[in-house]
């Protein structure tokens, strides 16, 4: 507990609020970096995800690549890019954009996929053009899952941006690495607390946004509580033929 008291002291020490190593400056760097990376990654992933979600083409490629990306160690990618293009901020920007794209892409197309096909058919039947369907039906209904994708991307970027201090003099991660080198536990711990608080704050913010973007009357994106279903969930009005084709439909 002693260490935590020291860390708190470090957090309120006025000496840490001036100069190039000031806490507010490091916080702003970290947050700014996260926002910029998310914007770049979104600009790439959202249109692509909407295209995949709307047309249904390229889905298996997207699923497979998202899985493969998960296996790639962030630290490895970061050091590799840093070594190729030099120390500085460009390497983390490239590496983290690459890492942020798959979750956002997945959020964008699963959001579209989660929509009841009948809703889209109905939109088409009343004469909406494809562009109108995307804009007025699919995007609003898929928004909660898209925000969910942004949320996991944001978490990942905040976490990995800490590692980015390994290859650039930047962000909250600097405190961790400086503290590790000099065995300054107060600095190391204080920095860790700041990063964790930032991650939790972002998580909370996204969780709230995710709730607010659900169109009124629609519960897509919120986890349905299976326990609230009645004990006889199977509808009886479907004909035997339809029952037999159920699997074909859900594919």
């Amino acid at each position: 507990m002693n260490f935590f008291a020291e860390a708190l002291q470090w957090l309120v020490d006025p000496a840490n609020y001036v100069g190039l190593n000031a806490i507010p400056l490091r916080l702003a760097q970290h947050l700014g970096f996260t926002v910029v990376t998310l914007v770049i990654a979104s600009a790439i992933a959202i249109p692509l995800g909407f295209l995949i979600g709307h047309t249904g083409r390229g889905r298996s490629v997207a699923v497979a690549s998202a899985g493969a990306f998960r296996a790639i160690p962030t630290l490895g990618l970061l050091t590799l890019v840093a070594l190729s293009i030099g120390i500085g901020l460009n390497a983390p920007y490239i590496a983290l954009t690459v890492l942020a794209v798959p979750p956002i892409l997945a959020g964008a197309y699963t959001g579209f996929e989660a929509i009841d096909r009948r809703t889209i058919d109905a939109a088409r039947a009343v004469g909406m053009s494809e562009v109108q369907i995307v804009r007025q039906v699919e995007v609003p209904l898929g928004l909660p899952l898209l925000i969910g994708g942004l949320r996991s991307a944001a978490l990942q970027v905040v976490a990995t941006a800490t590692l980015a201090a390994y290859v650039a003099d930047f962000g909250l991660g600097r405190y961790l690495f400086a503290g590790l080198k000099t065995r300054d536990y107060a600095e190391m711990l204080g920095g860790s607390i700041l990063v964790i608080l930032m991650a939790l704050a972002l998580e909370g913010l996204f969780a709230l946004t995710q709730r607010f973007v659900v169109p009124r009357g629609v519960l897509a994106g919120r986890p349905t509580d299976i326990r609230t279903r009645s004990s006889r969930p199977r509808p009886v009005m479907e004909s035997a033929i339809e029952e037999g084709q159920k699997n074909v439909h859900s594919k």
Partner: protein
Amino acid sequence: MTWIWANLDLIWDRTLDHVVLSVPAIVLSFIIALPIGWLAHRYRASRGVILTVVGLLYAIPSLPLFIILPIIVGTSTRSPLNLVIALTLYGVALMVRVVADGLASVDLDVRQSASAVGFSTWTEFWQVELPLSGPVLLAGLRVVAVSTVSLATVGAVIGVQSLGSLFTDGFQRGIQAEIIAGIVATVVLALVFDALLVYAGRLLMPWTRSRAATTVTDNAAGSVSTAATPASENRSREIAR
């Protein structure tokens, strides 16, 4: 390339270090997540609390956790035990939700039939609910395995040896081949674990084999579409760190 041939021993040693770090974390997180996930599934009040806590736990960035954890549990920062505990925490955070979802995926009719023919809660869990939620659990465990292997590399920056040491060493000495070798070895190790889990799943759940044949091609790279809903698929993508 010459670096790789000259240092195959080193790569092999780091791979073994990596296995020693990640296997206990994967196994422990499955064992620990089972009762917690059951609790989250069983009572509505505990569900909200547990899933929120687990979600926040997962939101904690890895490097700060690696630093704070030894101070809380009293291990040394550079001890592999510290890393195993941290990786287990992340695995549990992911797996609890999967267990809760998996148990919820068991058809209510089946559960009612089980209690109607006289299964107790205990035997029903082991003989009915657990086997039937197996495919979902397997999908979740595959995600945990791949992300644990990938996350273990971060330990290298605090001085715990793993395949991640190839990144830090390669970066400091400017050897590109070393970093690439590290990335490839990490991905290969993740794929080996994934394949082993799929194989174990076929042995333990022979009744899923006919269905598995179609889902496996879909999921070759370790995704979790078997977890049924797009929402849960998206959620389990949160692993990607």
